């Protein structure tokens, strides 16, 4: 987990596998740099494959930015648990957080690239989702 102080949109990576989440975050850091708040979470609370809401909330907290946070997820539970985590946030924060419909690795790199250029949350999301377009 790591973070940076900036007004850029934060990126959260959620995978069933902590190795995938951490690896994707490594790619973002190496390719895009440190100008973007970034956090990752993966695995269930017992350390197995899965995702957990508490871990996602923690990652959102770490990557939080006044510009908002874009979440990249892999499969099913990662998405539903992320949505659950978003619903548990305070209302003013809920409006500044999105789950992107994009591949987790590519989406994270693209979203972070957008964010590093100072793009707003909607642009970050749109760009990540362009990967499927």
């Amino acid at each position: 987990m790591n973070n940076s102080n900036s007004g850029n949109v934060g990126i959260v990576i959620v995978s069933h596998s902590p190795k995938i989440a951490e690896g994707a975050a490594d790619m973002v850091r190496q390719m895009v740099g440190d100008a973007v708040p970034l956090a990752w979470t993966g695995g269930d609370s017992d350390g197995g494959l899965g995702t957990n809401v508490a871990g996602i909330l923690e990652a959102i907290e770490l990557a939080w930015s006044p510009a908002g946070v874009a979440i990249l997820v892999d499969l099913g539970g990662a998405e539903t648990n992320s949505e659950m985590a978003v619903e548990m946030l305070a209302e003013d924060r809920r409006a500044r957080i999105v789950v992107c419909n994009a591949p987790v690795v590519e989406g994270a790199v693209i979203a972070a690239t957008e964010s590093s250029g100072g793009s707003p949350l909607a642009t970050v999301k749109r760009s990540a989702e362009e990967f499927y377009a």
Partner: protein
Amino acid sequence: MHDVDAGRAAETFVTLTGSAVLVNPVGLHARPSVKLTQCAKGFVAKIEFALAADGPWTDAKSPVKVMRVKAPQGATLYFCVTGPDGEAALAALLTLVHDGFGEA
């Protein structure tokens, strides 16, 4: 002469062009694409590039579109830049490509 006021009044800027050869061994792969996008985003000018002098043009500020070009090593990147900081933008982009995005 440098008539800034006239340029502002018309709200038009001369379109600048320039080209540089890709020297990176793998061409415009993911990492250079990100760097190109980040560099372009640092300027307000409209910045496009192509593999031929007459296009088709790609928005250099879109990471997805830049990666889709998949420009190989040895390809010439043609830039087309329009905006108030166009000159600085073009110079920065050409330097970036020429220097192999810092990885050559």
